[in-house]
């Protein structure tokens, strides 16, 4: 009987062990890397909305507080998007002829909601709650970036589990006084750097380190 495998297969089989490992490693790395690119995480990507609403004009330029529009952010899980009536408190009197605002007027007259597309969207199996973060002194800006500089809304963080945990493991690095949560330009002062301030806030707000899976997967 002749041999089934030629002698050279010895080398080949050895090489395949190394190569196989390399290919597997490369695949895993590629997937992990891809997950962090804007293509998957949608960081810095804006979406086509029914009205090109500018936070830069309304927040940065006019100085309107987040809560004028995102009314429930202090009290519930959702920050909630404003109703058309909220836009109309101003736009019934100003910029009443702007073509850009036609969908807003139509929506108000016909009692149909404006269909905003979600920019931030966690998978449905993850639970998030705004009110607790606001109460414990996490600024909007820490998670959403310089909203007052955005002509169009976009993500500034991946919203990966890795990102949530990076803060839940050491919240003291990110906390600020409650009064400053809505301030887009807050920075820790020179007299009291973040390390010292964070430790004090963890103490006075009794901030826990919530890393139990059931905190977010319930």
């Amino acid at each position, binding site marked *: 009987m002749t041999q089934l495998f030629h002698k050279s297969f010895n080398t080949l089989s050895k090489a395949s062990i190394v190569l196989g490992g390399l290919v597997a490693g490369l695949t895993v790395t590629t997937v992990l890397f891809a997950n962090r690119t804007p293509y998957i995480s949608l960081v810095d990507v804006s979406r086509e909305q029914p009205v090109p609403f500018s936070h830069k004009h309304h927040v940065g330029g006019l100085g*309107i507080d987040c809560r004028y529009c995102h009314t429930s952010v202090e009290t519930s*899980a959702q920050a909630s998007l404003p109703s058309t009536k909220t836009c109309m408190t101003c736009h*019934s009197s100003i910029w009443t002829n702007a073509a850009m605002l036609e969908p807003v007027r139509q929506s108000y007259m016909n009692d149909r*909601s404006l269909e905003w597309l979600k920019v931030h969207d966690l998978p449905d199996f993850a639970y998030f709650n705004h009110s607790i973060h606001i109460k414990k002194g996490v600024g909007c800006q820490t998670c959403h970036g310089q909203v007052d500089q955005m002509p169009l809304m976009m993500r500034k963080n991946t919203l990966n589990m890795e990102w949530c945990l990076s803060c839940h493991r050491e919240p003291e690095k990110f906390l600020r006084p409650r009064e400053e949560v809505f301030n887009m330009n807050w920075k820790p002062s020179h007299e009291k750097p973040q390390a010292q301030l964070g430790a004090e806030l963890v103490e006075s707000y009794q901030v826990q380190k919530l890393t139990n899976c059931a905190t977010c997967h319930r």
Partner: protein
Amino acid sequence: MRAIFLILGLSLVGVLASCRQDMHDQPKYKPQSGSSFFADGRSNRPVLAGTVARGRLQDDALLVTGKENGEFSKVFPFPVDAAVLERGRSRYGIFCAPCHDASGAGNGMIVQRGMKQPLSFHIDRLRDSPPGYFFDVMTNGFGVMYDYSDRIEIEDRWAITAYIRVLQKAQNAKFADVPADKKETLLQPPK
């Protein structure tokens, strides 16, 4: 041999099937999501007429309407303390200051951009208006100003009213009104 291919093929199907996003986008409504089931396209349903949520029975006419015997109430429905004023200050800043400005003079940013200018809160008529009047304007609107009843809780509307009273006092204060222990600091030259 056939069996092996069958198993391989099936597991390939299994692998591909696991790419589905069922758990990411579960067939359930989240607040403010759209709906193809209801005619108005909203998953948020309006409250049926006559429904009273637990703990929200509004049987205190003064608190809810700001009126007593058909007239604007001259008193607040609950005692006003420092915490109420502080709450009023923050809500005023969020909801009123864009137009009425921080002092109540009516020169807010939106007015500067073309909104009709409201009268100053410091004219005699408004200084003499009872608290119930301000509550009523926030609840039902006034002229081109829309109402804020859907965005400001009832208690907060009263807190804002109390804070407007503070502004009115402060804008018309005389030196004699300053408490004795604060006079000293006022007299010091600015640093």
